[in-house]
């Protein structure tokens, strides 16, 4: 007997911001959608390892697909975040010229930006000083009021949760290993069984070239390019109030090491740009970390090594080889042999910003063939969990007295309560990892980095029925503990 395979209208591979945003956008229509993710949670790839900036669009070449989807993304981002209940702050950006030689580049950027329709203004040192009193002397800057910040990992989670609310099925810990065209649909082989689908959307980020190869397209190649960061203590949040960028270095393939305030009050320093061999080598390195601190201090002398609380790295999925450098355009194309296989390749910066635009672009491609029908019961909003520390005091008092779990503070650095840990642990995606809790609550992300709260989180996970030997940092073999100490009965 042939085992019946679960079958879907559309299979999306990769639950980064691109895959989850597409899933959510497609969920508006009457289609059966599966989203496959190899990791234990959504958004654990590049989508949680970036600057979290909603770009205004002045670095995208005029007429490019990048410019189109980035501009659309920037325009709708505030609404997107409001519907999904994810932080968004329109803080604005200064691109700062430190010497006269850089001024022409400022004007060039402004020209590109204005062609794309971005609101930009060149200002002098007096204005810079007024806006950002802690930056060191500069000659001029370009101010972009429409640049904003968001929380990139919460955004992937929110898109995924909203997609699930609207019927999308998400398969975590499920790597797509091969795809075959068989009996007029695709057969997706995963580590967890086979699935059928009529459409495949390849949103596999750094691995998108490999997925494309499964459709018979071998002309794509991803060149991983790493960017390292430092995160600073949120007691230094007063140092800057908007995004502080240098004039982008020529042909670097990055935007230069910049200072980014996060929605949680930390400052990010980075990212560097470096082509590397392996796409999963998220190492930070001694020379780059030193460089980050140095460049940041050149910009804002008030920053010191004592303010660091963590380092991390993200990897850009570049389609331009190291020999060429710079940026390529986004590729969003159906496979020439099969129009129902859509590849998204080279979605590097500003991919986060462009996600809503890219999602609509992909849906339009399918709509043009299928004439998709809208659902009439689509729910476009999703509520985030309570963030106790951000509640007004009256609500804090009420909630902590109504429910003891909100009276018990688990993370003292960020003021996170047991109630929040429990909501995160019982998330709608069924993720039960320490990082799953971390990204949903910020626990372990503060200045002590889990020194205080980790053992408490483990306790809560045990109370919820998990064996401590099964507790992982991020799924797979990332077990935290090896067993019990001797002599315990």
């Amino acid at each position: 007997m042939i085992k019946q395979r679960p079958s879907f209208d559309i299979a999306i591979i990769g639950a980064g911001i691109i895959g989850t945003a597409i899933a959510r956008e497609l969920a508006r229509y009457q289609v059966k959608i599966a989203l496959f993710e190899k990791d234990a949670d959504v958004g654990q790839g590049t989508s949680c390892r970036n600057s979290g900036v909603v770009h205004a669009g002045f670095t995208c070449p005029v007429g490019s697909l990048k410019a189109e989807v980035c501009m659309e993304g920037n325009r709708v981002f505030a609404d997107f975040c409001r519907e999904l209940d994810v932080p968004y702050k329109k803080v604005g950006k200064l691109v700062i010229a430190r010497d006269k030689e850089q001024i022409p580049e400022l004007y060039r950027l402004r020209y590109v930006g204005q062609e794309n329709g971005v609101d930009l203004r060149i200002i002098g040192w007096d204005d810079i000083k007024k806006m950002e009193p802690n930056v060191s002397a500069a000659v001029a800057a370009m101010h972009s009021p429409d640049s904003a910040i968001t929380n990139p990992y919460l955004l992937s989670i929110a898109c995924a949760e909203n997609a699930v609310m609207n019927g999308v099925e998400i398969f975590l810990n499920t790597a797509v290993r091969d795809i075959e065209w068989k009996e007029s649909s695709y057969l997706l082989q995963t580590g967890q069984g086979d699935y059928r689908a009529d459409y495949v959307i390849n949103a596999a980020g750094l691995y998108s070239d490999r997925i494309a190869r499964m459709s018979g397209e071998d002309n794509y190649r991803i060149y991983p390019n790493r960017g390292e960061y430092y995160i600073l203590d949120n007691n230094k949040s007063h140092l800057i109030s908007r995004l502080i960028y240098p004039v982008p270095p020529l042909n670097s393939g990055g935007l230069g090491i910049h200072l980014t305030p996060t929605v949680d009050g930390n400052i990010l320093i980075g990212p560097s740009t470096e082509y590397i061999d392996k796409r999963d080598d998220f190492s930070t390195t001694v020379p780059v970390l030193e460089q980050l601190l140095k460049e940041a201090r050149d910009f804002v002398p008030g920053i010191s090594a004592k303010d660091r609380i963590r380092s991390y790295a993200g990897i850009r999925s570049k389609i331009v080889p190291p020999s060429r450098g710079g940026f390529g355009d986004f590729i969003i194309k159906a496979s020439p042999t099969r129009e129902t296989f859509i590849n998204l390749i080279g979605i590097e910066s500003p991919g986060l910003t462009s996600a809503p635009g890219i999602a609509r672009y992909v849906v339009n491609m399918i709509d043009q063939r299928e004439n998709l029908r809208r659902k009439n019961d689509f729910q476009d909003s999703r509520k985030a969990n309570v963030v106790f520390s951000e509640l007004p005091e009256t609500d804090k008092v009420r909630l902590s007295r109504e429910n003891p779990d909100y009276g018990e503070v688990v993370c003292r650095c960020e003021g996170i309560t047991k109630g929040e840990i429990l909501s995160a642990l019982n998330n709608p995606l069924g993720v039960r990892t320490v990082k799953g809790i971390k990204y949903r609550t910020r626990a372990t992300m503060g200045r002590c980095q889990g020194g205080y709260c980790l053992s408490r989180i483990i306790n809560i996970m045990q109370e919820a029925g998990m064996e401590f030997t099964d507790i992982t940092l991020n799924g797979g073999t990332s077990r935290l503990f090896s067993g019990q100490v001797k002599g315990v009965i």
Partner: protein
Amino acid sequence: MSGDLLSCNLLCEEERDLVIIGAGPAGLAAAISAYRQGVRDILIIEREARPGGILNQCIHDGFGLHKFSQALTGPEYIDRFIKEVAELNIEILTGSLVTGLSRDKVVTVSNRKQGLFRIRAEAVILAMGSRERSAGAIGLPGQRPAGIYTAGLAQNLMNIHNIMIGKRAVILGSGDIGLIMARRLTLEGASVEAVIELMPYPGGLQRNIVQCLQDYKISLRLSQTVIRVEGKDRVEAVLVSGVDDRLEPVPGTEERIECDTLILSVGLIPENELSREAGIQLDPATEGPLVTDSYSTGVPGIFCCGNVLHIHDVVDYVSDEAEKAGVMAAGYILRESRERSGEDRNFIYMEAGTGIKYILPQLVKPDFRGEFSLRVEKPGKNVEILFLAGDKVLFKKKYYRVDPSQMLRISCPDGLLTGQDLVAGQPAAVKVVVE
């Protein structure tokens, strides 16, 4: 509804003579001594389920040598104080985190039973202890897989939760907790591949080097550091490198050590979030509050002792210091010595000069008769510690051997500072140097 609660919250503030934040060795000893001075309305607030502080997880012995002339385990040492506090009927509110402290001594507390509430105190003693410096704070390079723990967290997981954290460990940093954990892991059947120390000398006490490393043949590698953590899911190895005089890695000296666990023992940081919130000035050298000889911070009525004031290596000295702070807080409450509360500006400023990392108290009265606590910046043999007023040597003390890991205590000789001219409103400085 919520409006009612809010006004209740603001109006029904409980009032206390003395609130002590933290029921570790410092908080408990301070409570007992304040009680003995006559203060009765005392509340100790502790976030853990039971009092005792860090000592609850220190199941090794070596505590109490100075105070009780006995080698006790951490729990045995602290039990004496817990019992005494119970006998005196001093109230401890456990499972309660202090989340806020204002300049006018309003303490915000949160717990499961009462939710969020406030207490107004006549005087406060800060005894919050310290936290560990994390991997991020030292810019540890490489991947971030499972299996990286700070030493105190590892100690907590193993000794309180009975959880074994790994089988093959490398320890970065030779602070006391790391040394203790090297032995503990070995006794639990794990192999400790090496203890790696950036500096040319160890960070922990000599006795721990002998008892925890040498006795177990664990190698201590000085002037080395970890330049990369490897492993995608779980730690697989660390790359270790020698460092030069400027503490920069020396190319060509790398060595890869396989392990599944990396333990960090790279320092403790006094836990002063609440102090900052209350507007208390900190000393960058100790990372704790700047205090007068009455252990008063810059905010009148807020006192401070233990690891939150400066990192101690021997708990007995914490108890001593806390007793003094308790006496001073009691004096403040009983209004015997309001003028000692920090409002009076006629202090001599003790300046940490060449070779001295810090000296405490930082501000003393000319008639000070107590004890100075200080640490040197680097190890030395046959050194003299000089107290200078300008070029004039007021006092000197000889040491055969000094170590940054060992806190020095120097009793202020009678009349040492009395001759010092005090300019009104401007503290005179006495400089302490190593020669």
